[in-house]
C-alpha cells in the first residue's frame, strides 16, 4: 500500500493502530517530494529534519497505553505542508518574493502554534504567487508550480503549491490563504478540497498580510472531513488578531445537521452560469445539483444582482490595502536592501523596485492611485459601498436558501504561460470566488468531476457568515452523491 494516498482520517487511524509509524508516513511523503517535486515544484523549502520530529513522535506512540493513544490530538504525526506566507519560527518565509528571499521568521503564526501543539509534522513551505497576488502560481519569483494532473497546465493560485502538494500526494493536507479565491481556485484546478473560513474564524497573526479586510487562512485536503479536522484545529479567538472570532461564535449544532439532503434548500445563483462558463464545467455542476435533488434537496434559482461588480470592487479594495500593507517592506528593517544607495529615499525606492515583481508593483501603483488625494471618493469609497451591496445580495439570498452552489471557476486549469501578458484576463479566473471574500462568508471548493481530458472541475458551496460547520456538513452530504475522487 502506498501510504501517501491515504486520507488524513485514514492516516490518523493507521498511526493509532500501529499499522505504520509516523516515520513511515513522513518518510514516504519526503520520498515522494524527492521523486516528484523536481517537476512539480510545489515546495520552495523542504524540512529535512521532519524525519527527526517523526522519530520523537514515534517514541511517544511506542510508550503510550491505549488510553494515551485515544487521547492523541487528531493531527498527531500527520505530515502537513504550509504556504510560504505563513510564519514558522526559524524557517524561511519568502511569500514567493525576492524581497524576502533571505528572510527567516522570528515567531510562529498562531495557526502553526496550534498545529505544533497537536503534534502535526510540518513538511515544508509551499510555492505561491508573490505575496499571494495571482491565480496561477506563475507570479512566484522562484518559478511556477505545475498541475499534477497535467504538467503543462497551472495548478491555480495563489496557494498553487499547497494544492499541488496535496494532489501530488506530497502532503496529507496543507494550509493556504484565501483573499479572493486563493484556496478554492487552486483546489478546483488540482482536484482537492479547499475551504475558505468565515473572515475572522481563523487568526491571521503570522500571515504575511496582503489585503487585511479579506485575508483568511484555511485548509486544503483530500476530503471534506479532512479539511474540517484542520479547520477545527486552527480556528478560534486570538489576542494577536482583534478580528478573530471566539470558537463559540461558530455554531457546532444546527437543527439541519440531523437531516441529510432531504428538504435542504439549495440556491443556484443564475449570475454564476452566464457567458464565459465552460460547457464541461456547467455540465458537471448541473449533474451534482441533479443528484442532490434526487436525494431530496430543493434546488431553486436565486439572483445576486451585483455579482458583476465584485471583480471591479475587488480590484480597487485589494490594491488599496496592498499599497498600505506592503509599505512596511522598506529595505531597511528586513528583506532585500539595495546596494550603494545614497539617501534613505533611494534605499526605499530601489530596494522595492529590485525586490518586487511586476504584479506586486502593478497593484501597489493601482492602490496608491486609488487612495491618492482627489481620487479616494471616486474609487476606494465607491468600491466600499459596492462591497456593502454585494454582501447584502448574499444576505437576501440566504433568507430563502440554506446554501449557495455553483462552479468554483469558469473553466478548468489553463496552460502555463497563456494568461501572463494580460493582467485583466488573469483576474477573470477568480470571477466566482471574490464576492465571497468581499462579503466575509465561508465557502468550500470540492471536486465535482473531470472533463474529457481528465482535468478536475470544482464545485463551490457558499454558506452564511459563521456557519462554517453547516458548510462542512452539507459538503459531506454532497461528497456522498458526487462519488468522484480525483487521481493524480
Amino acid at each position, binding site marked *: 500500500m502506498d501510504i501517501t494516498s491515504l486520507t488524513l482520517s485514514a492516516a490518523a487511524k493507521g498511526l493509532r493502530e500501529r499499522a505504520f509509524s509516523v516515520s513511515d508516513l513522513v518518510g514516504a511523503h519526503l520520498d515522494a517530494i524527492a521523486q516528484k517535486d523536481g517537476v512539480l515544484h510545489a515546495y520552495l523549502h523542504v524540512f529535512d529534519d521532519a524525519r527527526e520530529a517523526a522519530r520523537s513522535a514515534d517514541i511517544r506512540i511506542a510508550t503510550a497505553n491505549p488510553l494515551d493513544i485515544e487521547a492523541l490530538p487528531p493531527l498527531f504525526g500527520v505530515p502537513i505542508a504550509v504556504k510560504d506566507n505563513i510564519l514558522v519560527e526559524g524557517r524561511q518565509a519568502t511569500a514567493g518574493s525576492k524581497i524576502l528571499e533571505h*528572510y*527567516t521568521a*522570528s*515567531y*510562529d503564526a498562531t495557526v502553526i*502554534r496550534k498545529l505544533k501543539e497537536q503534534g502535526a509534522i510540518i513538511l515544508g513551505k509551499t510555492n505561491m504567487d508573490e505575496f499571494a497576488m495571482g491565480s496561477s502560481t506563475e507570479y512566484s519569483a522562484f518559478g511556477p508550480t505545475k498541475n499534477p494532473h497535467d504538467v503543462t497546465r497551472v495548478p491555480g493560485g495563489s496557494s498553487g503549491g499547497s494544492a499541488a502538494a496535496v494532489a501530488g500526494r506530497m502532503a496529507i493536507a496543507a494550509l493556504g490563504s484565501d483573499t479572493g479565491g486563493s484556496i478554492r481556485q487552486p483546489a478546483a484546478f488540482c482536484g482537492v478540497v479547499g475551504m475558505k473560513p468565515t*473572515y*475572522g474564524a481563523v487568526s491571521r497573526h503570522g500571515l504575511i498580510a496582503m489585503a487585511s479586510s*479579506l485575508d483568511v487562512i484555511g485548509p486544503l485536503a483530500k476530503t471534506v472531513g479532512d479539511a474540517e479536522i484542520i479547520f477545527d484545529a486552527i480556528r478560534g479567538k486570538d*489576542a*494577536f488578531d*482583534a*478580528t478573530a*472570532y471566539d470558537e463559540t461564535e461558530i455554531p457546532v449544532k444546527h437543527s439541519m445537521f440531523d437531516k441529510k439532503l432531504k428538504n435542504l434548500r439549495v440556491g443556484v445563483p443564475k449570475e454564476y452560469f452566464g457567458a464565459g462558463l465552460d460547457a464541461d464545467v456547467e455540465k458537471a455542476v448541473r449533474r451534482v445539483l441533479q443528484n442532490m435533488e434526487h436525494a431530496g434537496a430543493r434546488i431553486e434559482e436565486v439572483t445576486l444582482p*451585483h455579482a458583476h*461588480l465584485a471583480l*471591479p470592487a475587488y*480590484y*480597487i479594495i485589494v490594491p488599496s490595502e496592498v*499599497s498600505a500593507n506592503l509599505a512596511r517592506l522598506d*529595505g*531597511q*528593517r*528586513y*528583506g532585500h*536592501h539595495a546596494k550603494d*544607495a*545614497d*539617501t*534613505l529615499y*533611494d*534605499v*526605499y*525606492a*530601489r530596494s*522595492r*523596485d529590485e525586490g*518586487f515583481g*511586476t504584479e506586486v*508593483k*502593478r497593484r*501597489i*501603483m*493601482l492602490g*496608491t*492611485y486609488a487612495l*491618492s488625494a482627489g481620487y479616494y471618493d471616486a*474609487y476606494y469609497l*465607491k*468600491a*466600499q*459601498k*459596492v*462591497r*456593502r*451591496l454585494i454582501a447584502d445580495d448574499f444576505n437576501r439570498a440566504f433568507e430563502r436558501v440554506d446554501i449557495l452552489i455553483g462552479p468554483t471557476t469558469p473553466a478548468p486549469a489553463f496552460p502555463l504561460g497563456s494568461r501572463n501578458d494580460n*493582467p*485583466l484576463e488573469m483576474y477573470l479566473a477568480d470571477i466566482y470566488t471574490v464576492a465571497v471574500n468581499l462579503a*466575509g462568508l465561508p465557502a468550500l471548493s470540492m471536486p465535482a468531476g473531470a472533463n474529457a481530458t481528465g482535468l478536475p472541475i470544482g464545485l463551490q458551496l457558499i454558506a452564511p*457568515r459563521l456557519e462554517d460547520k453547516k458548510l462542512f456538513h452539507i459538503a459531506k452530504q454532497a461528497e456522498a452523491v458526487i462519488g468522484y475522487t480525483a487521481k493524480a
Partner: protein
Amino acid sequence: MISKKDVQHIAHLARLALTAEEEDRFVGELSAILGFVEKLNEADTEGVMPMTGGTMLAHVMREDAVSDPVLEGKHEQLLSAVPEKKDGWVKVKKIFS
C-alpha cells in the same frame, strides 16, 4: 486615462524607482484596469453605508500589556534580519541630500 506623468507621480508616492520600460508598461496597464473598474459607476450607491472591513465584531478590547511570553526575548532575531545595523540599532542613510 493615465499619463506617463501620473505614473511617475504615483511611483514617487509609492517609493518605487521604476525603470523607463516599467513606466511605459504601467501607463497602458493601469489605464486598462481603471477602465475595467469604471463599471462600479453603474451601481446606485446613494445612501449606502460603506463596508469598511471584513468583520462584524466591534470594540475589541484587551489589556495593554505583554500577554505572551513566547514573543518575548526576540530582540536578537529581529535585529538579525536588519540589513545594516550598528551597536544594536538599525542604521539608516542620511535623509537630506
